[in-house]
């Protein structure tokens, strides 16, 4: 059963990492604010639920509204701030997004307070399914398939649509694409907004399971990096593989050696670096 738990948690990691990978793959920027945005998504969903008062249908509304809200915020961040550092060395981009992360984190505490919030399970998905050997929460099954769908959709969008092709061309030669009359900068904004909305979505999805805390962003960011290192940068499949591995390792270790769960994850990462520096499926 822990194995299945691990896969589900892994799915959450996958979703976040895919968002980060999209932004990196398309914009060549590592967004250090990704974790803070994950937290923001969770908190926004919480607020949606509180504002609506009616707990039951609000979850579904939150799944739509929170990522949308975050997408908007992301678009603003991209247009105002990120755009100015596309030509700078990576270190400056990282520092900028790190600053944004700090700001978001503090704003979260300012608005919602320093103590965590909890969120009840949506009634439609509450309860367990009897799988013979053990009972497994329905919500987690839903999570897995929902995330799978989203990832599929994202992949299709990037690989198969014209828009995706434009973006891929824009990475290689921004000015050229611009000259062709295509507004590459608008495309970049869309991609960034999309990438961060995935993180926010993950935040909403994890809300009924683990609630929301102001510093959840930090831990998730580290885990996302571990996933990237293990799976390999710039690779969609790598993000999926890495996310699942990390989720499974974490859940299995909780069974045998709870305190060592995090340490085992890092050990796995160190192992991958040593043996396969590009990550298991890395391309860059």
């Amino acid at each position, binding site marked *: 059963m822990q194995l299945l738990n691990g896969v589900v948690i892994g799915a959450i990691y996958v979703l976040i990492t895919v968002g980060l990978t999209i932004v990196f793959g398309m914009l060549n920027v590592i967004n250090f604010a990704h974790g803070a945005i994950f937290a923001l998504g969770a908190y926004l969903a919480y607020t949606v639920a509180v504002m609506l008062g009616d707990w039951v249908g609000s979850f579904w509304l939150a799944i739509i509204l929170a990522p949308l809200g975050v997408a908007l915020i992301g678009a603003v961040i991209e247009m105002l701030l990120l755009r100015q550092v596309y030509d700078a060395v990576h*270190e400056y981009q990282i*520092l*900028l997004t790190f600053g944004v992360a700090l700001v978001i984190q503090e704003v979260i505490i300012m608005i919602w307070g320093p103590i965590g919030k909890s969120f009840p399970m949506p009634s439609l998905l509450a309860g367990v399914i009897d799988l013979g050997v053990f009972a497994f929460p329905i919500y987690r099954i839903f999570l897995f398939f929902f995330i799978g769908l989203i990832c599929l959709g994202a992949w299709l969008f990037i690989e198969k649509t014209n828009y995706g092709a434009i973006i891929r061309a824009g990475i290689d030669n921004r000015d050229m694409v611009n000259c062709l009359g295509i507004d590459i900068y608008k495309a970049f904004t869309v991609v960034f907004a999309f990438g961060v909305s995935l993180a926010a979505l993950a935040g909403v999805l994890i809300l009924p399971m683990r609630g929301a805390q102001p510093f959840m962003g930090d831990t998730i960011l580290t885990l996302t990096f571990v996933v990237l290192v293990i799976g390999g*940068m710039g690779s969609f499949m790598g993000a999926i593989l890495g996310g699942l591995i990390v989720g499974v390792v974490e859940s299995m270790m909780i069974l045998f050696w709870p305190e060592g769960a995090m340490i085992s994850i890092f050990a796995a990462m160190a192992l991958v670096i040593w043996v396969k520096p590009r990550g298991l499926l890395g391309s860059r």
Partner: protein
Amino acid sequence: MFEAALGRKKPLVDREILILGALLMLMPVVLPYKTLAAEILIYALGAVAFNILLGFTGLLSFGHGALFGAGAYTTGLVLIHLGLHPLMALVCACAMGAVVALVIGLLSIRKVGIYFVMLTLALNQLAFFLVYQWKGLTGGDDGLLSVPRPDFAIFPGMKLPIQTNLQFFLFAWFVFILAILLIRRVLNSSFGRVLVAIKENPDRALAVGYNVRHYKLTAFVISGFFTGLAGGLYAMFMRMVPITAVELFTSSDFIIMSLLGGLKSLYGPIVGAVIIKITSEALSQIWARWLLVLGATFILCVLYMRGGVCGLAQSFFEKRKHAEPSK
């Protein structure tokens, strides 16, 4: 023409260092608390050590909290359990900082650019977890308590007291100045110049024959050595080691101090440390969410002030020099 292009050799102790030393010596007089003065020195040292990597080699490390903490815990532990001479305790801190830097470096320098940054962040978190879990040794969340600060003897029979805040500040000041002299020596050495080349164009540095990996690793170890030293001072300063010493937040402290003060100069991080420490001390009294200001500072520096305060000052003086005809 040749000499003009080449530049001059700087002596070990010159006007710059004397002015720096004098200015820093003013701190306990000017600042409201002497403890703040000592804390500034400690963080300034850590930031300068950090900047060896970022400003001079082009490596952004989020792992310096781990190095700082390594030095702090090592000093704390040897003072508590082994009762070593304080100077020896500091040497142990340096050694441990260097060793941890070596480990982090070996793992991280395999990768370039972004990977490196991400790895150092992850490894810093790992260090945090290790410290947190190993309660027996480190005290975990509560921190390592009751670190002694013994007076020590340099010459037989003569004990140097470091008990009061002022006395400790003077001690820290000596250690700081010595460390800065040494760091400056390294940065101006042949090795240091190659680091700058690596920062400017690592591919070309490799192509002209430098083993870039060796240089990066050595730079990391040196940076760790001095960051550990700062940590050791911190343990003696606080008479304890809080777990925040290993936190990511300490890493980002060094980063913002270097960024704000000026990455390109040896002294930039010192300026940054002074500004950040004083402002955060002042702000935290009136507003609990002053971290917001810190985050905003990060953003503003990256967007508008990449050279930091020192960079601004430098371009200001250069404009004046070009505006006036030389006398």
